């Protein structure tokens, strides 16, 4: 959002010759530095562009734009800059970890990275399942074709605008080209900022394609063809995300799939929930399956159990803003984390209606069925069809099963607001 806005404002500054827009662009670019680390490269690309444009055109207007941009940027970035001056080690913690220059054969790695990033639009995209359906090109074939058309047009007719797009495109690749991590290039996340110039260049490409088709099609035919192509692109991209992503099994490993499913199940209703067993926060898939494509690029991300627990609580929709984080964490509202033993003595629970969630466990399931034949038991399956959780919903108990005293089991000792009574 901030990078697009900074480019947009800079464009307006160039077109209208008004430096106030360059000043605003600098402010927005400065704000972007308070987000993702890669914003440093975005800002650098804009500075390089202004410097280059000033050197090439040698016009006072560009110089004014450059000064205005630098002023806006400096104002916003000053606190961050002071902080980095006071804590120099903090500045490069993450970039040092990922730097390609940590490796002895960095030149070969950079050469490989350049090649793989060049292919990412058309042949083989990012392979890390969080960022992409592994291997899927980052552009659909039609958009990629138009992008190439736009790129050629921009190179053949370079003005200030085209220079801006090409500079930001090239420089924002550096985050990917000079880094290395286990999934291997292309690093589509670290080069995400190229999205803005890429699709602006697609706009240039569309202009070229329409100009070419206008030579042999009438205006009406041209419009029909353009709209048809656009609808095909939209449908294709709909499939590339909503059709492929549900099959992205590697994403289950690299993302917090199970806490997400658990939290959303709890959020389904307002029933008290018993989450049973410590193993509920152990990921089912602790290793990448051998022989699967891109398995090595997508090792499981094992989050600490307390983070999984906190994620489950926050996703459950039962986080109470009036309470502190610690208060919400222990105990959360109407969510009870218990061991199976606490229910074993008398599974016919006292707090009704209630929902119980546990890892597939025949003993608990059998005990629940014996004590409450009316219990509704169902399974939550992952996208491979494997059962990851069992859900038992117990309705209101028959009169004969209602607790006589508060000592009949764990559940009876827990009041409705989650506090032991």
């Amino acid at each position, binding site marked *: 959002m901030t990078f697009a806005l900074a480019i947009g404002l800079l464009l307006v500054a160039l077109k209208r010759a008004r430096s106030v827009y360059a000043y605003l662009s600098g402010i927005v670019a400065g704000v972007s530095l308070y987000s993702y680390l890669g914003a440093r490269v975005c800002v650098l690309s804009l500075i390089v562009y202004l410097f280059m444009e000033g050197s090439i055109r040698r016009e006072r207007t560009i110089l004014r734009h450059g000064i205005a941009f630098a002023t806006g940027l400096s104002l916003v970035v000053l606190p961050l800059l002071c902080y980095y001056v006071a804590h120099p080690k903090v500045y490069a913690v993450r970039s040092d970890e990922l730097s390609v220059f940590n490796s002895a054969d960095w030149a070969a790695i950079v050469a490989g990275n350049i090649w793989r990033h060049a292919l990412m639009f058309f042949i083989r995209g990012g392979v890390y399942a969080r960022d992409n359906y592994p291997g899927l090109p980052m552009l659909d074939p039609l958009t990629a074709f138009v992008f190439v058309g736009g790129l050629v047009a921009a190179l053949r007719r370079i003005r200030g605008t085209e220079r801006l797009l090409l500079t930001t495109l090239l420089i924002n690749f550096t985050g990917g080209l000079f880094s290395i991590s286990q999934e291997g290039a292309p690093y589509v996340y670290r080069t995400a900022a190229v999205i*803005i110039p890429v699709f602006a260049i697609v706009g240039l490409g*569309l202009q070229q394609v329409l100009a070419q088709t206008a030579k042999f099609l009438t205006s009406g035919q041209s419009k029909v063809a353009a709209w048809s192509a656009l609808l095909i692109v939209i449908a294709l991209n709909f499939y590339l995300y909503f059709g492929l992503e549900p099959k992205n099994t590697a994403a289950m490993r690299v993302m917090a799939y199970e806490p997400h*499913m658990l939290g959303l199940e709890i959020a389904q209703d307002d029933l008290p929930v018993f989450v049973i067993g410590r193993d509920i926060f152990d990921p089912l898939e602790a290793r990448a399956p051998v022989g699967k494509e891109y398995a090595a690029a997508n090792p499981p991300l094992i989050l600490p159990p307390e983070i999984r627990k906190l994620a489950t609580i926050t996703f459950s929709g039962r986080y109470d803003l009036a309470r502190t984080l610690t208060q919400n964490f222990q105990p959360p509202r109407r969510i009870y984390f218990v061991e199976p033993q606490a229910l074993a003595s008398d599974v016919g629970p006292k707090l009704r209606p209630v929902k119980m969630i546990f890892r597939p466990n025949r003993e608990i399931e059998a005990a629940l069925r014996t004590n409450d034949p009316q219990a509704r038991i169902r399974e939550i399956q992952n996208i491979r069809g494997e059962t990851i959780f069992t859900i038992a919903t117990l309705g209101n108990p028959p009169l004969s099963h209602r607790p006589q005293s508060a000592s009949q089991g764990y559940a009876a000792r827990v009041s409705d607001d989650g506090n032991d009574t």
Partner: protein
Amino acid sequence: MVDRFSLARGNRPVGLLWFERSGEATVDSPRKFFAVPFLIVLFTAGFFRFYKIFELPLGPSADEIFTLNNTIALLNQPFDLFGHTPLFVEGWVETAHLYLYFNLLVVKLFGVGYWTMKLFSVLPGILSCGLMFFICRWIVGERIAFWAALIFATAHWPVRVSRYGWDVSFML
């Protein structure tokens, strides 16, 4: 306007054109703001970013969870935009306080939940589509800008980034 469609550049090598001292392109400045195409772009972007948001992507990334937790932690502190160090967490996920205050606004409006955590990325993602329309209007004019922005709003790459991207979506 017409000369922009021409691909002919004589015998000059393409690379040297980079340093040509040419001014701005001759596309007319868009004079008035067309609300209808802009709203269509935002609506399409919203559909592609909200549709099945609880199911896809298959879960949150670790960084999204940490960002939500950091935002919640900030919730219990008094509001003081200038009373913090710029970075909330140093190192791996170098979350900045300014970004967390943006998230805090979302949390205040929508509460804490999976949906809210996704809004941290989805809202800037939708706005980026509107901005793409705005950028392309200045480069290629209103009509083609509309098509380019629609492609951007629906392309799977930006859609992915908007649906899981936490601070990268804010940056874009």
